[in-house]
């Protein structure tokens, strides 16, 4: 079964992935995805009826702790990495028109 990725699907995935692919890159992404999905489709040869999806190999449970700060104030160090800051905030482009 050969997968075909439509322009609409490619646009939609681009929105989910927050990626802007143009021209050549977009066509390469389409071909790559079609090939990979064809390859992944080999999984359909396997009968997985009644098999539970396994997200973790060992039984893991949520780990809780008391809500107490232990790592001190890292404000300045954290903000030092900001591409753009305004006083004690991360600055982003205007979000509301």
């Amino acid at each position: 079964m050969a997968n075909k990725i439509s322009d609409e699907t490619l646009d939609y995935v681009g929105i989910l992935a927050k990626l802007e692919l143009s021209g050549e890159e977009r066509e390469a992404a389409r071909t790559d995805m079609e090939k990979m999905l064809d390859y992944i489709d080999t999984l359909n040869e396997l009968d997985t009826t009644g098999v539970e999806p396994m997200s973790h190999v060992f039984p893991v449970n949520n780990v809780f702790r008391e809500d107490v700060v232990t790592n001190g104030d890292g404000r300045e160090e954290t903000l030092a990495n900001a591409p753009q800051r305004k006083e004690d905030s991360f600055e982003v482009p205007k979000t509301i028109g």
Partner: protein
Amino acid sequence: MKITELTALELGAKIRAGEVTVKEAVQAALEQAKAAEPMINSYVTLDEEGAYAQAEEIQKKIDAGELTGPLAGVPVAVKDNMCIKGQLTTCSSKILSNFKPTYTAEAVENLKKAGMVILGKTNMDEFAMGSTTETSWYGPTKNPHNTAHVPGGSSGGSCAAVAAGECFGALGSDTGGSIRQPSSYCGVVGMKPTYGTVSRYGLVAYGSSLDQIGPITKDVSDCAAFLEVIASHDPKDSTSVEREDYDFTSALKDDVQGLKIGIPRDYLGDGLDPEVKEAVLAAAKVLEKRGAVVELFDLGLVKYAIPAYYTIASAEASSNLERFDGVKYGYRAAEYEGLHNMYKKTRSEGFGAEVKRRIMLGSFVLSSGYYDAYYLKALRTKALIKQEFDKAFEKYDVILGPAAPTTAPELGTSLSDPIKMYLGDIYTISVNLAGLPGISVPVGRDKKGLPVGMQLIGSAFAEKTLIRAAYTYECATGKAHEKMAEVKASEKEVR
């Protein structure tokens, strides 16, 4: 003997005995790195000043009897996807090219507690996505045994640095073979521990349910000693496991009498290079002669591991990498119109082709309408693959096979055909899906002189069995296949 030719434990012993100072050890590694780096490119960051400062402090503590561990004073390298406070941590990506973490990864903290000197951060495939270290934004790392070939990946920088004597051991991370495959290509020992053994706190996540940090070393004894240092139960990582045993060096025993070893027939079939097959089967014979019981068996579902893996890993990657949006750290596009355009431009300019490929695929398989057909199908396949391993370990103590189907390919020959590149991970990937421990041990060379690695796979938490088998092999062969790479003078002149 040159200092750089010592193993980590040998160096540690000499430092404790006062025969070598920590400063001398650091100096030797840095000089070797400076000579080799123009050809190998193992490091993204080499922290010369910091290394000497650490050396001074550690020497004082050793002299005062405060640091007594077997690896105190030993200079090591860390893959550039593990955070070190205040030190550049790039994941070999443009998008993190200016990122300095505000905290240190638990595994690195454990190295520091043991008194090891961190020399720098090693090159890798961007965000650990790749099998050759060619997707790095900082250019490819070269194989120290032959610089026309790749070192493997994604922990290619760490493995090349160890093989070239640019450090005495290194940390790597392994999501689908990223420690074992480059260890095989570079002729060093590399182990992926059981999922949960080493804390992932401070490891930049790729596929969280598969990622595991592990040691890359010159020999099996060093591997056990490093694992003993980095393995810990960490409340800061909710998937960290409290193990019953952390005394991995106690398994360094030259004895495999009665050990049951199974070789999957499917690991010897199509696509396996005859020279690799020969070397791996010869290694199995060595263990058989030492008293192990070796037989072939059918593992099953081998060919479904790669498609299941790329579905799961890409899905997790697309989610994990959403955080890189140009707001709180890292690269931000210079020009944009509004917030959403800033996100898109930042990410499109900041990520390389392979990372984008996996984010796109991951976003697709998680999207509504495809989630069941792809993502859940892959998780169901994973359950079946784990069952196959469970069945195998009812009969065998260890599964033996190649670490990779070939030796290191030439630079520039892998990235054009992703599926072919992914097939190179066929023997390692299922181990991550099942959460098992695996180790790659050098067992020979091909005609070109490139190393071949044997992979030993254990049941969950059976690292000690792997260490014992690998150590026995090493004893039987007198470490014949663990020779360090020679950095050739002729190539030095070319640079």
